[in-house]
């Protein structure tokens, strides 16, 4: 907790200092060109933000001072105050005090600001009097002299006294203008990406050197131990820089929930859990849209109307929990609501009418499989389209996003109790733990996020079933696919035959022992038969380059220690491909890769 507060404070100070220097810049600009309305507007905005932030953090001094400044700039903006040299002096002084206040957060020194605040208040009040006077003078020219005398007199007579008293204190601190620097640096993400790319290349180069030295004797690995350590430290430092707290994103969802609930006329409250969990900034950016869809979905479909909730013995106000936690290599984001839960019968019915599933398989599908149907494109259980939900877009966006970053979706739903959507996200998109394997003399990598286990089976353990192969492992039946067959399918397009996925199986020796990597994605489990399992390795994945960037089986490439290119398998797509083959009964029936 302490750390988190400290970090927020640090960020606030950095932002406030930035605001402070911006105010200074704009103010000098206005001094030169008093008619520059856009600068005045900017000043008004900045002081307004500063006020809000400071109030939120509990820095009353800054909040009060920027509040009065905001008011003042509002008057200037509306043309009620014309700033003269003297008033500029006061403003500069006020802003210096503001700067001191901000800096004081760091070292905890006390800064007097009441004096300058009063002075600004006087300025403000006087301008109001003047404008009032102006209006008054139009209305009643005769009385104007008297009224101004009476109102201004007490001001001018009382205020200078306490102003003088406090001014004396202020002067000591304001003697010289200091140039101060923030302890935080703002860096564009683009530069960070670039840095990470370079580190990635360094790692690849390191691997290459290590690999080339390996043959030269036993000392080699010792020699390069330091290089290895430094480069991996560097890598993790850069990755650490890119980590941000999920809270920054999560906090924005209060508004999303509020707006969605307002449209649906529901009472919904959002509770955040684990906001200090850290995740790669790019991952956070990529999933933000998905989270919006999921949360709107909770409000639209999950949470019931207040009267319905009360009738079911639930509090009238629905709750959505948005939580995050670290789970070894991954970050798990959970969206939970206490609404009515998924209506599996309805999903089944809708999926049937929309042709997503066939009648004969409908009854066989488990609840898990049914719940994943809501992520299919075009699927919606809503009969009416409204602003938030019912269009059938949205959930498939979530699925696509998860596919693209190697995330995993799980849904658990309890009728009447609510629904939990669990997203397992990689904590960093830069480095992936992968299993390297050999296939037809090429090296491929499978992200560990998808691999369940590695097994070896004899040919006799594997049986032909339908157009594919199955084997029993640990009491579970899993589909077995020779990865080679899938890849060959493209090259031998003229000779596609019904038992494509069995062709390698037919060719191998009856007593051959097969290495199998069991992968799973969205409830689909497949064992890939590979030629050879190599090793587990952290890789830096690079995107595919033109003109091969459309290839769906491969999600990216990495360069191995040998300097050779290694392809990273796109498991979600491979599984989709395989199941689209088998789902159509015959291999050679129309199917698309997309």
């Amino acid at each position, binding site marked *: 907790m302490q750390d988190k507060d400290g970090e927020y404070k640090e960020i606030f100070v950095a932002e406030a200092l930035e605001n402070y220097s911006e105010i200074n810049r704009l103010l000098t600009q206005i001094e030169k060109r008093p008619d520059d309305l856009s600068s005045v507007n900017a000043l008004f905005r900045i002081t307004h933000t500063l006020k809000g932030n400071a109030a939120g953090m509990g820095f009353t001094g800054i909040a009060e001072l920027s509040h009065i400044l905001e008011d003042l700039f509002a008057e200037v903006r509306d043309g009620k105050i014309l700033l003269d040299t003297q008033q500029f002096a006061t403003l500069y002084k006020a802003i210096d005090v503001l700067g001191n206040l901000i800096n004081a957060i760091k070292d905890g020194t006390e800064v007097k600001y009441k004096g300058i605040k009063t002075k600004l208040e006087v300025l403000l009040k006087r301008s109001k009097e003047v404008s009032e006077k102006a209006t008054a003078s139009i209305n009643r020219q005769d009385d104007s002299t008297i009224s101004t005398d009476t109102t201004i007199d007490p001001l001018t007579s009382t205020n200078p006294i306490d102003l003088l008293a406090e001014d004396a204190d202020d002067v000591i601190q304001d003697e010289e203008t200091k140039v101060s620097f923030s302890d935080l640096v703002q860096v564009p993400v683009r530069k960070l990406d670039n840095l990470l790319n370079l580190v990635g290349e360094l790692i690849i180069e390191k691997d290459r050197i290590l690999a080339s030295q390996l043959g030269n004797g036993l000392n080699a690995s010792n020699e390069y131990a330091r290089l290895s350590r430094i480069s991996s430290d560097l890598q993790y430092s850069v990755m650490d820089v890119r980590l941000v707290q999920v809270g920054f994103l999560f906090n924005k969802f209060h508004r999303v929930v509020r707006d969605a609930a307002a449209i649906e006329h529901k009472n919904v409250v959002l509770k955040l859990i684990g906001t200090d969990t850290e995740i790669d900034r790019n991952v956070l950016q990529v999933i933000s849209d998905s989270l919006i869809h999921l949360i709107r979905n909770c409000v639209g479909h999950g949470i019931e109307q207040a009267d319905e909730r009360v009738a079911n013995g639930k509090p009238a106000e629905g709750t959505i929990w948005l939580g995050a936690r670290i789970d070894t290599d991954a970050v798990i984001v959970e969206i939970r609501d206490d609404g009515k839960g998924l209506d599996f019968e309805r999903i089944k019915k809708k999926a049937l009418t929309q042709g997503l599933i066939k009648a004969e398989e409908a009854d066989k599908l488990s609840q898990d499989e049914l719940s994943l149907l809501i992520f299919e494109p075009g699927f919606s259980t809503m009969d009416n389209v409204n602003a938030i939900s019912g269009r059938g877009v949205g959930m498939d966006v979530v699925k696509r996003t998860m596919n693209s970053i190697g995330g995993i979706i799980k849904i658990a739903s309890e009728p009447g109790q609510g629904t939990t959507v669990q997203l397992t996200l990689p904590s960093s998109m830069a480095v992936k733990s992968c299993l390297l394997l050999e296939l037809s003399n090429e090296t491929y990598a499978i992200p560990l996020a998808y691999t369940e286990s590695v097994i070896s089976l004899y040919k006799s353990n594997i049986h032909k079933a339908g157009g594919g192969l199955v084997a029993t492992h640990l009491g579970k039946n899993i589909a077995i696919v020779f990865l080679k067959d899938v890849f060959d399918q493209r090259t031998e397009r003229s000779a596609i035959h019904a038992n494509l996925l069995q062709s390698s199986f037919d060719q191998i020796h009856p007593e051959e022992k097969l290495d199998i990597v069991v992968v799973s994605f969205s409830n689909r489990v497949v064992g890939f038969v590979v030629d050879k399992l190599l090793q587990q390795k952290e890789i830096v994945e690079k995107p595919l380059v033109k003109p091969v960037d459309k290839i769906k089986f491969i999600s990216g490439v990495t360069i191995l220690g040998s300097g050779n290119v290694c392809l990273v398998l796109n498991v979600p797509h491979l599984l989709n491909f395989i199941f689209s083959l088998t789902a159509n009964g015959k291999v050679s029936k129309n*199917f698309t890769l*997309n």
Partner: protein
Amino acid sequence: MEEKKANNNTDHRMLQIVVFKLGNEEYGLHIDQIKEVVITPVITKMPQTPDYLKGVANIRGNVIAIFDLEERFGLIKNASTESAHKYTLVVESEDVKLGLLVNEVPNTISVNRSDLDESVGIINDTNTESNYIRGIIRSGDRLIILIDIFKVIDQEMTQSTRKTASVAA
């Protein structure tokens, strides 16, 4: 003054052409499209690609796609496959970088612009839509086919994507 200079340029502009052999024919690329010539690195095969796309390779830290134009153009391969494809010609445009396999180090020649015949009626591949042949260069006894490599690849990739999408349909 400037006009004169421009005139001079068009009159005597020499074309710098990089010439390489494919099959028994000589093909040429404009030198602006060439980045470098390297010894062919280890090529990693890509699934879901046409045969003439040999795969991807690491050239100076960049992963680029490697093409075999002999296979693409359907030219008879040299009998000695041992020494074949020893070099890779790296070509680069604004948004794509790729490698072409060649059998020997290409040479560069300067030809007069007037030697380039752009208007020849060439019988195109029946299944290609746009013409990637920019013209024929006559240089002494030699006949060099000047091609626009990015047109070849562009066309091919869009076609093969379409094919992949409707495999066995």
